[in-house]
């Protein structure tokens, strides 16, 4: 029997006296959301295949506090942040990778003031580095070669942290036909979920934000909408369903696209 995928926890690593090179911060959506769990799994498969010495916190992980802070509850945010920092510092974590732009932004930008200083990388940048180093190779372009793909910028990755090129370079490795939406990069339109909108009904208006954005994505004629954020993933998938296009248009995370094109 061949080896199985490894998902070591920090606790296990510590017990064995080992230290991982990088901590994979899975995030709540990556842990619980049925759709995003597939992204987590895809990313872990890539980490395994490339041979990255990583670990996760497993049951010790907890919400970063991002939704609480964006909703105005800074008490709850700081309770979460400071508790998380205690766990992270307890394990002497130096480097963190995460597939969630909200976790990424919070840990990278908002934890340092509270005593949590780490090198934080979003999985788009991480994958880009692996591709540039030749550690991830898409053989013959994979199944997305020549397909029309459009990338939706997550606000917390793009405008919030100016990461526009990394996810696009990852997509470029697929040798696909990359098309931009009318509003992209710094002018990209939000999916509608940020600022804790994910956790409540929208205010009265004439349209849902995710529908507006989905229409723009569909207008490109792409058969794949690529995203790099769990909330965007939900909003755009819902939008595509609303437009009854789910048979023709798929919403994938960039890690899934890489994993799929490698047959993982």
């Amino acid at each position, binding site marked *: 029997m061949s080896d199985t995928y490894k998902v070591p926890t920090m606790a296990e690593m510590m017990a064995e006296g080992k230290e991982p090179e990088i901590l994979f911060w899975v995030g709540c959506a990556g842990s619980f959301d049925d759709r995003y769990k597939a992204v987590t799994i895809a990313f872990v498969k890539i980490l395994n295949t490339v041979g990255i010495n990583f670990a996760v916190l497993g*049951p010790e992980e907890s*919400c970063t506090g991002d939704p609480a802070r964006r909703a*105005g509850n800074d008490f709850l945010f*700081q309770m979460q942040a400071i508790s998380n920092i205690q766990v992270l510092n307890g394990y002497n974590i130096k480097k963190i990778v995460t597939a969630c732009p909200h976790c990424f932004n919070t840990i990278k930008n*908002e934890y340092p003031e*509270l005593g949590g200083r780490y090198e934080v990388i979003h999985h788009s940048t991480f994958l880009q580095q692996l591709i540039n180093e030749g550690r991830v190779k898409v053989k013959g372009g994979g199944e997305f070669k020549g397909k029309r793909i459009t990338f939706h910028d997550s*606000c917390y990755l793009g405008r*919030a942290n100016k990461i526009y090129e990394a996810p696009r370079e990852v997509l470029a490795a697929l040798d696909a036909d990359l098309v931009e939406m009318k509003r992209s990069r710094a*002018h990209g339109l939000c999916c509608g979920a940020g600022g804790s909108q994910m956790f409540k009904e929208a205010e009265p208006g004439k349209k849902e934000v995710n529908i507006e954005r989905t229409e723009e994505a569909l207008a490109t004629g792409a058969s794949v909408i690529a995203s790099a954020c769990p909330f965007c993933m939900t909003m755009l998938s819902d939008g595509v369903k609303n437009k009854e296009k789910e048979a023709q248009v798929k919403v994938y995370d960039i890690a899934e696209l890489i994993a799929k094109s490698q047959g993982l």
Partner: protein
Amino acid sequence: MTYISQILFFISLLAVIYFFTKRITRIRKNIQLGKPEDRSDNPSERFKIMAMVALGQKKMFDKPLVAFMHLVIYLGFLIINIEILEIVFDGLLGTHRLFAPFLGTFYPILIGIFEFLAVGVLVTCIIFLVRRNILKLKRFQAYELTKWPRTDANIILITEILLMLAFLTWNASDSVLQQRGVGHYANVNAGPFLFSQFLMPLFEGWSDTALIAYERFAWWFHILGVFAFSVYVTYSKHLHIFLAFPNTYFSKLAPKGKFQNMPVVTNEVKMMLGLPAEPAIETAPETPQPETPAEIGRFGAKDINDLTWKHLMDAYSCTECGRCTEACPANITGKKLSPRKIMMDTRDRVEEVGRSLEKGGPGIEDGKSLIDTYISREELLACTTCNACVQACPVNINPLDIIIELRRYMAMEDAKVPGSWGAMFSNIENNMAPWKFSPSDRFNWADKLKETPVNGNKE
């Protein structure tokens, strides 16, 4: 006779200096109603941002055509103001075109440049008026942009048109008088000029007296107009012409996604978790906490005095162009939120409080507040914190910062948030995730994966 006009000129100059200074002092005081915040770090980076964004108008060029037209007015404003210097000297000394003899042949060239820009400003202002009032651009038709804000914009454009017309016709009538060699006009040989020469035929049938009367009228109209306009600007949305510079200098330097920390909360949380707080207090977790920790102020912002001075400077710097609102996902989809309205409301409230304080009134204690009286909770709740408004602002105003401060007040002081947010809060508290899942299930996603062989391909 000249003495009278010199005295009148001197009085007008003093009056404009007085009213302008008085108003600027008031605005300064109003901005200082905000809480202190240190933004004196990284001066070189700040100068660079100011040079790029304010002086270089970098962000305007997201819309190249409008940026070009705006640039014409901007350059016109900067360069034609050199001519104001001569006009002021002439007014005070009773001279006529004082600089002409000193500059010689360069003088008509200089006036030609001014006229070139004046025509540019004139044409652009007409286009801008058409865009606002005839083409009715969506950006200028929002519900927050009615009555005064709309009139304000039109007053500014019409004033600029009138000032440019006065300047050009003054030059034209003056040139005719010079050619005819009437009185002291004969001593100045400067005209005709680049553009106003084409207006000269308009005046050629006029008598000398009528011409002199018009030349004086245009001269006085122009300079008094400039004086009045400079005071008017301080009461209008047009203040961005000055405030764009300090406002971009004091821009937020941190990544846009980083929210301002609340150190007061950090101390409380650390105490609750039994960690040493700042300043380090050696207390055991079970030590009872003081009833009211010495004056911690309000959590978040209910009114303008809970905001920082930078938020208030942002409000005064806003010229209501609406690029923020145009980019706002909530506004695009018909929600009530408009980042421009957030800025306009903030300024209206600061002005209201300032006016009251000036008259010895109750100021902030007038029973009103920025939240509820001006900005509704529905607007605040609609924000996705996407930073599109911050990105769009040509003078680096940050409406999101104000929205978050007001949300903090809603969540922490008022404890009034939508029920589903309340549920999300308690999920985070109890289940360590915004959804109601058992924390012990957090790692379940890996169960199946750990049994999947690496070379076995798809599950």
